């Protein structure tokens, strides 16, 4: 029974995707959205049922194989499902957000080409993501891992005529592949030392290997668990866009907005967090790896948030916000507060999907103009979008009572309690990040929804260009464009449905998920790392009241106030700050130089190296000197020898005589 349900959950979206993709002409536009929504709808309903079974009925952990992929050399590789509360939660989040995005897409893509293709891709994504979270082994995890990467590649490049889009999708795929390079080595290490790719068996055997060390380079000896965990985490850094492999995520905004919400905010990019949480029995065995994870996460959380403050593309602001929030989750994992990381993953999935879809709604209203300098006063035209966006913003900055408040505060508390190397640095980064989060969030909110405007529709409007034209603003002839109006129901209803959990889910879930027994037996935390256990918890209300006295809440308020003061009250300050701190602005505008570095050193360097190896290695050395060289020397010998064969009898006779004489004299002289 359970197996049938699980198979239906994964295969329903796949079937929908196949029909919409392969028979796009037969099913037409409406057919494509109906068939995929049906597939994902079935999947969502069944996932919620499974979630119910695990969360409330205490269903036993399900761990069965579906079929054997191959058995070779004693290594059994299977395709199978592991369902416990962690998986059930992920399934519910993934399919719910996916369903919302499917419905929303009907409105967002209404006038676009490639409608069927789009639905086919997002349904395929749902399938891939489910395979990833439901896997019971490393091989299938890697399959899902790469499959979501593939769909992400296809969707970032959805507008395949745009040079920037097809550059971004290649970049995304390659950055992810750099991560996967580490990931696959981590899997190889697991296979070698644990002799299995099955989670349950690997986790069982891991503690026995805790003291094992391996020498990888000369006399350098590393702890095996540290090596495995860091290698696996490199994969997570690619997928969850952590510094320095984060470069692809902002560019991924080239894709249509619904997938920015689904893939590049709510689900796929959280795969790394899910993976590390799933592997908690391994990570608990290596404090070095945990420190590494925490420092990377905290660094991403603060520094990527800063870039968000100066972005002018509505989607890019939210993208940098996503990077920063992913950093929070990763930092929580490093503090062994896996539950807090997952909790933030869940709340973030709702409010970030909401923010992206809200941004998409604004973009529809703006006739696909994404530059916030052209917006303003949108609250008058799009009330539903405005209110839901405000809810999302409040949830993001951690307004007391909203979902993000509980999850973010829990992370900061947990990191504060952590005693491993780097935890002080991480704590301050995360605390400072709260201010930055509020600053960029409210800057965006005020500029888009308040003030005069929308400036795009004003006569004689000149786009603000005070930042030196870093991003060229296209000036439209827009006088005959209709003013923005509220988006259709298929857009606003998902916004409302996502706004509800963005408010309440934190209050509801913090008790059981963080301080209850929800993740018992799923996530393992060593007693010395139990940071969440250190936090004194007396119900969500107590947590809320305690939070009101902490530093983060004041920083958030300060951030929001500064945003209001600088961007609403005295806009001149913003311009002034930019000129005064132009060095800082320059650094942020260049995104700390990661892109330029990659472009010059990796992309350029690889091409140079390739040219050198080809032209010099292959052409000159191998072909020139060896292959054609030997042909030439054969030719040279032949050309010399040829003189000996003249065809004249007297030449030969003469040669014979000389030879005879030579031979005779040799005998004589000897």
């Amino acid at each position: 029974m359970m197996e049938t349900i699980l198979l239906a959950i994964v295969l329903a979206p796949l079937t929908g995707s196949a029909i919409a993709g392969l028979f796009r002409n037969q099913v037409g536009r409406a057919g494509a959205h109906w068939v995929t929504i049906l597939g994902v709808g079935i999947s969502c309903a069944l996932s919620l049922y499974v979630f119910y079974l695990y969360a409330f009925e205490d269903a036993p952990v399900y761990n069965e194989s579906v079929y054997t992929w191959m058995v070779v050399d004693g290594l059994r590789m299977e395709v199978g499902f592991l369902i416990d509360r962690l998986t059930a939660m992920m399934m519910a989040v993934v399919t719910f957000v996916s369903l919302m995005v499917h419905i929303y897409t009907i409105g967002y893509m209404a006038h676009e080409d490639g409608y069927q293709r789009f639905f086919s891709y997002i349904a395929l994504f749902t399938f891939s993501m489910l395979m990833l979270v439901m896997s019971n082994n490393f091989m299938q995890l890697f399959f899902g891992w790469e499959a979501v990467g593939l769909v992400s590649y296809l969707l970032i490049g959805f507008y395949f005529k745009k040079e920037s889009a097809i550059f971004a999708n290649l970049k995304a795929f390659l950055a992810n592949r750099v991560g996967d390079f580490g990931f696959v080595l981590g899997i190889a290490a697991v296979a070698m030392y644990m002799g299995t790719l099955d989670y349950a068996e690997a986790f069982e055997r891991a503690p026995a290997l805790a003291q094992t060390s391996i020498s990888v380079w000369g006399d350098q000896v590393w702890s095996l668990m540290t090596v495995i965990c860091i290698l696996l985490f490199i994969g997570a850094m690619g997928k969850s866009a952590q510094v320095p492999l984060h470069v692809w995520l902002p560019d991924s905004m080239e894709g249509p907005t619904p997938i920015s919400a689904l893939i590049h905010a709510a689900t796929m990019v959280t795969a790394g967090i899910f993976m590390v949480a799933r592997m908690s029995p391994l990570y608990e065995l290596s404090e070095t790896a945990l420190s590494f994870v925490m420092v990377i996460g905290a660094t991403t959380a603060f520094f990527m948030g800063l870039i968000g403050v100066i972005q002018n593309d509505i989607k890019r602001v939210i993208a940098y916000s996503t990077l920063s929030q992913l950093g929070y989750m990763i930092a929580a994992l490093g503090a062994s507060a896996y539950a807090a990381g997952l909790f933030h993953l869940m709340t973030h999935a709702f409010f970030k999907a909401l923010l992206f879809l809200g941004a998409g709604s604004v973009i529809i209203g703006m006739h696909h103009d994404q530059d916030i300098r052209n917006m303003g006063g949108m609250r008058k035209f799009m009330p539903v979008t405005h209110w839901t966006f405000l809810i999302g913003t409040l949830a993001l900055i951690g307004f007391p009572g909203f979902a993000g408040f509980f999850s973010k505060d829990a992370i900061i508390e947990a990191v504060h309690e952590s005693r491993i190397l780097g935890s002080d640095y991480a704590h301050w980064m995360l605390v400072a990040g709260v201010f930055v989060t509020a600053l960029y969030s409210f800057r965006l909110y005020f500029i888009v929804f308040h003030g005069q405007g929308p400036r795009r529709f004003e006569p004689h409007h000149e786009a603000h260009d005070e930042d030196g034209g870093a991003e060229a603003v296209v000036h439209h002839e827009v006088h005959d464009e209709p003013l923005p109006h509220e988006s259709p129901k298929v857009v606003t209803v998902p916004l409302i449905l996502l706004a509800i959990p963005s408010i309440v889910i934190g209050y509801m879930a913090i008790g059981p998920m963080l301080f209850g027994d929800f993740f018992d037996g799923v996530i393992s935390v060593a007693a010395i790392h139990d940071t969440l256990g250190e936090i004194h918890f007396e119900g969500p209300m107590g947590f809320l009241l305690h939070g009101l006295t902490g530093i983060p809440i004041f920083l958030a308020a300060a951030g929001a106030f500064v945003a209001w003061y600088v961007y609403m009250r005295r806009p001149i300050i913003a311009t002034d700050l930019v000129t005064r701190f132009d060095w800082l602005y320059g650094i942020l505008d260049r995104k700390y130089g990661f892109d330029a570095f990659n472009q010059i050193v990796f992309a350029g360097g690889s091409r140079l190296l390739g040219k050198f190896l080809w032209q010099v290695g292959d052409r000159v050395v191998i072909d020139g000197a060896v292959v054609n060289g030997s042909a030439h020397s054969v030719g040279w010998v032949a050309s010399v020898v040829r003189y000996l064969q003249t065809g004249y009898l007297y030449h030969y006779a003469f040669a014979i005589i000389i030879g005879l004489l030579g031979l005779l004299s040799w005998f004589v002289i000897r």
Partner: protein
Amino acid sequence: MTADWPILSVTIWLPIIGGLLVLMSGDKAPGVSRWGALLIALLTFALSIPLYPGFDASTAQMQFVENRPWIPMFNVNYHLGVDGISMPLILLTTFITPLVVIAGWEVIQYKPSQYMAAFLIMEGVMVGVFAALDAMLFYVFWEAMLIPMFIIIGVWGGPRRVYATIKFFLYTFLGSVFMLVALIYMYFKSGSMEILAFHDLKLGMTEQVLIFIAFLLAFAVKVPMWPVHTWLPDAHVEAPTGGSVILAAIMLKIGGYGFLRFSLPITPDASHSLDWMIIGMSLIAVVYIGFVALVQQDMKKLIAYSSIAHMGFVTLGFFIVFIIVSRSDVHAGAVLGVQGGMVQMVSHGFISAAMFLCVGVLYDRLHSRQIADYGGVVNVMPWFAAFMVFFSMANAGLPGTSGFVGEFMVILASFRADFWFAVLAATTLTIGAAYTLWMVKRVIFGEVTSEGVAALQDINAREALVLTSLALAVLVLGLWPAPLVEVMNASIGNLVQHIGVSKL
């Protein structure tokens, strides 16, 4: 296990005789030679299929054996048989040939009967190479293979075909001459031409090293391994599409097959003491060639270089075995490496065939292979673009496609041999994706760049049939490799056991 009828002989001689008949049909009625060739190719495929269900996967013994005297004076026999290593490669050959016939259907207007005949004869000869258990017979088929390929490139090839054919011929011929010497030496030593007898032949270290090097020259050129690979890009560029397909999908595999059938079991000690060299050459192939592929301007050259890099995984998988075996008595990982190499060979057969066919589809329309001449193909050829992206992803080793399986197995196995082997091998995840997808970006995506591209027609039913067959093969092998792995298990296990025992 023996069938009621000589299944291997039929698979060898049916296409050869059929090829001669097609040749005789002449070019007066090209339809006759095309349909005739297709019929023969399909019939051969159908008749070869019983090899799979009839195969007993539990034993490493040779099966479907046929053995009758050929040149009794020299104790040379017409001895055929297959084990788990050769059987999948024969099926690969009989599967690919009909696709090549269909792919050349209307494209080849110049002497179609001779074109079709060359491929049919080629098929029979290649099956012969895989099935031969007598070294003389093997050598005859091995050399016979050169002739049809020489003709295919030389007659239907591109402008620089003469240079390419000579280079191809000299390279491969030079390699095989030394192999002949080694075979004759072992004949005098053992008094028999049986390959299996060579396996048990006691050989001293010096003898082993010399024989190993003689084989290496032959097989390394065929694979091709760095640094004897430079004939391949030239041959591919000049070859017609069908020629490239056969070359990449099957002929390269004969080199890999040779290592397993000859080098490893006959000279295990030499293989062991020289394994560092082969592993080094393989890793260079993976990394160095990957970078070279990145900067190619010609699609066929790019895929040719990508083939060399992928075949590097094959030889890597085969030779890390010695390091793993010498490390411990437990051979865990050794079988995985060889299996991985074999899976990679079969998978590469599908993927490289498909990639060359994709380039062929474009070449037939625009008569250019230069990446710069394309751009935005997806706008006019959406179905073709879907296939091309799919096969490119397979080429980049995406899980779920066959390209992943072999690479994954070899990476897992090489980790057991040495951490750094695995690191270098795994770089293909990034480099392989970079060169393949960068080509896709420039050819498939973007705005339509020229009038030529704007006038392109999407693939027709014939082309769709060929690409769909290969896509299914790539997908099935990627999603469920067990059927392939299982038939090889016993034979490869036996091989690893055999090479673990020193001959000294």
